[in-house]
């Protein structure tokens, strides 16, 4: 199963992610986001962070999750390649593990800077499988 696609946008860029479960679609959206920032093949798994986020609806929870990762990325200078949603409760609370390594400018080639996740055309929906869409400001 394909994990995500890049969504074309004139000025910015988005991700459409897929998953058999809501947990999986959260993982894949984050993976998609980091793939836009840096080639995940150049990232090793050296450090892991425990992430806990909470919000009122699944769409808001997705933005919260992605923003949390962007914050850790910028402040701790860590890029992620493995995102694991451990526990998801009532579509409002997520506990996850994010693994990657500290930025090494000799090995990591940065593609874009993501300034933030927008709510524009934000979607988290289920047909047979889950699908999430988010547009980033770059």
């Amino acid at each position, binding site marked *: 199963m394909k994990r995500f696609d890049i969504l074309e946008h*004139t*000025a910015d860029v988005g991700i459409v992610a897929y998953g058999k479960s809501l947990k999986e679609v959260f993982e894949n959206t984050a993976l998609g986001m980091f793939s836009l920032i840096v080639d995940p093949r150049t990232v090793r798994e050296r450090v892991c962070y425990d992430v806990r986020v909470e919000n009122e609806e699944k769409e808001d929870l997705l933005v*919260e999750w992605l923003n949390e990762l962007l914050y850790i990325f910028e*402040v701790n200078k860590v890029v992620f390649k493995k995102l694991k949603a451990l526990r998801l409760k009532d579509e409002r609370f997520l506990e996850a593990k994010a693994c990657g390594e500290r*930025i090494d400018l000799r090995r990591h080639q940065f593609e874009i*800077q993501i300034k933030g996740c*927008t709510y524009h055309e934000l979607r988290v929906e289920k047909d047979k499988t889950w699908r999430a869409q988010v547009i980033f400001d770059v």
Partner: protein
Amino acid sequence: MADYLEKLTPCCYKIPKTHKQGMLVPGIIYVDDKLLRLVEADKALEQVINVAFLPGIVKASFAMPDIHWGYGFPIGGVAATDVKRGAVSPGGVGFDISCGVRLLKTNLEARQIVPLLKDLMHELSRNIPKGVGRHGRTKLNRREMEELLLTGMSWGLKRGYAWDEDVLHVEEKGCLAGADPSKVSERAFERGHDQLGTLGSGNHFLEAQEVVGIYNDRVAEAFGLFKGQLVVMIHSGSRGLGHQICSDYIKVMNKVIKKLDLELPDRQLACAPVSSSEGKDYYAAMACAANYAMANRQFLTYWTRRSFECIFKKSARELGMSLLYDVSHNLAKFENHIVDGKEMRLCVHRKGATRAFGPNLLPKDSPYRNIGQPVIIPGDMARASYVLVGMAESENEAFSSTCHGAGRLMSRSQAKKMIRGDQLKKELAEKGLIIEAGHASLLAEEAPGAYKDVSMVVDVCDGAKLSKKVVKLRPLGVLKG
């Protein structure tokens, strides 16, 4: 052409208020037929319509000639709300709060410095951190950060990063009133404390440019610009601090929307009444980001001057490196304007649009009080950039606003598919351009072909009397993150 559009003049189209239920004002789009065809290719017009739903919006939901699809607001959107009953929307400012441009002058002739250009660009690149994951030369502690957020450019002046007269040549004299660091989250502090003096990435840049054309001798002379002159343009914003403030407050506004049971056509338009505590808190935090952005561009200026001194073996003062102007293009500001014959206090959101005050609206101590405010319009890295001037008549249009750049034509991935970065670099080098950029694919994303021709855009600004052309600039050396 969409059937709901009405052509008002050759440079202006209207979307009537009756087009969609819920629109509080009409949409006004400043484009000519050619630009309109480009605008209709994406969802920008739909966003002009959506902004017309913003509570308390007056006159119209405006779009500047470089309008393109954004998130919530279109890029190039201008919306003013009544401060008494209207809303302030973080989406109407964007993540890069107070992203803006400044132009530094020199008394050098571009043709004379060609042999030193490569060394100059290299020195600038050495002194100015650019790109993702890079921190600045200074790390600020909590107390210094608070002072910086409160006082903006004065912070830099006190520490020797600015000249006394620099402050007079910046919008709001380098300090937007109403800033309150206690409304800025700990996370925003963390993200901003080591990024001062960094250029950033994406469309941010520093360029050495040459004045190649003069459209208005009188104003060019008053601005101290002459043909053949070497100038430096700097485009950057409030970095991670501003991004975090925007994310923090959209979350706050989402709660306000629920509480007030407001229905908006796009969640990114989330807002709060200007007079509510949430609205006031956002404005106070946003003003902190604006002060950070202006100080950041000052810090970049300081290192630009130092780099010039190193290469030309003269002081920056001897090199005539004074500031023409610094103006933001992502900001909400309180301004007084005439609406339906009455003066009103408004919260003017400019998202990818530049304030362009004519002489009438500038403060008495402004050096441009008799001329109008310089408007700096960056183009793409190969063709051109412009300096325009604000005009009194433009107050009757979109609250004295004008475009902010060329506007993108192609998405980033489309540009990467169609343009090869290494080939582009070669082509530009053959034209004599010196480029210091992160890597090839980044260059492809920002390729000239990915943008509209800025000359078409400024011609419409001029034609629609939003601002008047003064000089045309050509890039010589480019620094990109």
